[in-house]
């Protein structure tokens, strides 16, 4: 086992897969000479050369189109958007094109492309640079969506993504790049659409993903001190979404708290809640609670920003609510 950062884990995944498969190339803004704006692609230009690691102009639509076209033509593009916020400029290529081409062509033109992007809030980058847009992608059929929370998951999932035959939206959290974790020396892949129990427990289920998984774990640790034993589930993949795993856990605990950084309305956890109440209502001892990002454009001021992002305290409050330990707010 090696102990490495999320950044390094992603870098290893890219490096290993590029060594394995000549069809893979990387393109994006400042991914090469600058080594990536978050340094995920550090050293790759040096190892793989200008033909396989390409700096693009600031042209998000065509960066995405480059991925769609080259994938249809048989390559395995790994496209980096500088941040998820700029994917808004490429929604048409991603959803009107990448997600539809296989189906629309009656299965003859699949689009095996990976679209990576950092995102999330907490760095005081302001409203246009602090978003969590995974929901949009999860909503659109034809896309796979992955959003890992640990170096181990990140490496295993990115390697899997790069071997898939369909478009994958791979979202990283800016606040997790420096997070360290154990990663095997030997090669491994992770299955698609399989969640992971990051902490087993018996009293309440907390489901989350990406950076909020860590906030959930923090809450679980604190709750342990209060005698509450939480099971913490990491979705890891948002599409397909392993709600089976959540359901199984709820069958055991009877209580569910959903934690997400994105905006609440029609967010990822709206889907989890809708499914679990549908298939697990008989097991629920309390309503499912959501802890989500505040529904405002993200303010710059630090305290305001922090108030917009779910905290362990909010998760604890929600858990207590489902346990009936306090009145509803």
């Amino acid at each position, binding site marked *: 086992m090696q102990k490495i950062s999320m950044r390094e884990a992603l870098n290893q995944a890219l490096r290993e897969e590029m060594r394995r498969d000549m069809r893979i*190339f990387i393109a994006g803004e400042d991914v090469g000479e600058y080594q990536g704006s978050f340094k995920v692609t550090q050293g790759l230009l040096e190892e793989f050369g200008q*033909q396989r690691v*390409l700096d*693009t*102009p600031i*042209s998000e*639509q*065509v960066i*995405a*189109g*480059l*991925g*769609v*076209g*080259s*994938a*249809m*033509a*048989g*390559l395995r*593009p790994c496209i980096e958007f500088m941040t998820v916020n700029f994917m808004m400029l490429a929604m*048409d*290529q991603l959803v*009107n*094109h990448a997600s539809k*081409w*296989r*189906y*629309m*062509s*009656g*299965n*003859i*033109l*699949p689009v095996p492309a990976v679209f990576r992007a950092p995102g999330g809030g907490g760095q005081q980058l302001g409203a246009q640079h602090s978003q969590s847009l995974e929901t949009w992608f999860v909503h659109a*059929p*034809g896309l*796979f969506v992955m959003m890992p929370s640990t170096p181990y998951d990140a490496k295993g999932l990115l390697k899997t993504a790069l071997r*898939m*035959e*369909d478009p994958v939206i791979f979202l990283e959290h800016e606040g997790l790049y420096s997070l360290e974790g154990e990663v095997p020396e030997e090669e491994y892949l992770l*299955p*698609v*659409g*399989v969640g992971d129990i990051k902490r087993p427990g018996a009293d309440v289920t907390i489901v989350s993903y990406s950076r909020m998984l860590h906030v959930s774990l923090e809450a679980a640790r604190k709750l342990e001190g209060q005698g509450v034993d939480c099971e913490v589930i990491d979705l890891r993949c948002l599409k*397909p979404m*392993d709600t*089976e795993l959540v359901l199984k856990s709820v069958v055991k605990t009877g209580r569910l708290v959903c934690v997400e950084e994105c905006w609440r309305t029609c967010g990822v956890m709206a889907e989890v809640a809708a499914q679990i109440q549908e298939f697990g209502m008989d097991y629920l001892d309390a309503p499912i609670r959501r802890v989500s990002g505040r529904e405002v454009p993200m303010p710059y001021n630090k305290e305001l920003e922090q108030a917009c992002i779910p905290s362990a305290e909010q998760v604890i409050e929600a858990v207590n609510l489902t346990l009936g330990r306090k009145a509803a707010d």
Partner: protein
Amino acid sequence: MAEKDGRDLSVTSRLTRKELLSLYRQMQLIRRFEEKTAEMYQRGRIAGFCHLYIGEEAVAVGLEHVLTNKDYVIDAYRDHGYAIARGMDPKQVMAELYGRSDGVARGRGGSMHMYSRELKFFGGDAIVGGQIAVSTGLGFAVKYRQEDAVVVCAFGDGAVNEGTFHEGLNLASLWNLPIVFICENNEFGMGTAVSRASSFVDLSKRALGYNMRIDKVNGMDVLAVIEVIDRAVRYVKSEQRPTFIEARTYRFRGHSMSDPQRYRTREDVATWRERDPIKRLQQRMIDAGQAAEEDFKAIRSEIEQQVKDIVAFAEDSPKPPLDRLTEFAFADYKAPDQ
């Protein structure tokens, strides 16, 4: 800029009678295919948006005369003509219009979504300008694998105003991608004339900002198209640079099947019909003594039969089974461990 269209006839002057008749045949096939499509649309056998290529046949046919099966083609939604000129089976194209299992996209795509992997035909994009962004990826793949091929990306006059046009042409030029961009200027984007949508009416000028070779051609003259495309393809291959071509053409019918066409007069259409690319080639061959009216008549009657067979094929093709609705949404991945 290259010489004006039709001036340099170095390629087409070498065309044999057989080749010329084949050009005629292809244009006529597309024409009749489209007329039949309109008829079957009126009869309710075809639905949705349906954009006919009538009047513009010389562009796709001239183009495909030059291209080989190593080359890649991508186009917009007005794609029946492109699909047929590329060599796709018109029966399967018609079956797609019918939404049947034998359709090129097994009934999933429809009029705007014709594709063929073998023939490297990538669509069939119903988003104006979308294929320009996609074409850079095709061009990149060709370059990456060092194939001896070009990518042709066709789009309309309306698409020139989309951001994808700009981003795509800049990247193609910057990265030396082997792409021939063809703007089919048929004077209108739906009901909007070029002069009401573009800051230059001369659309070849819209490509001035990309450090790219620019050419123009009379898209109503299949021989002129061949000359210009031939030069373009040779340029792209030898210089490893993209190029932009404006083809002036005209659609004789409405934008799609329900277009009152108030934005143009009958006289406008009549004027352009006089430049019919099919009649033009026929007249030219007759004038040059290369063929007689009978020859064309024979071809036309063959095509009549072919078009009947095409429709019969589509009529007989089974509908896609309902229980296979979600097939093709993804590749077959192992289900998550339970």
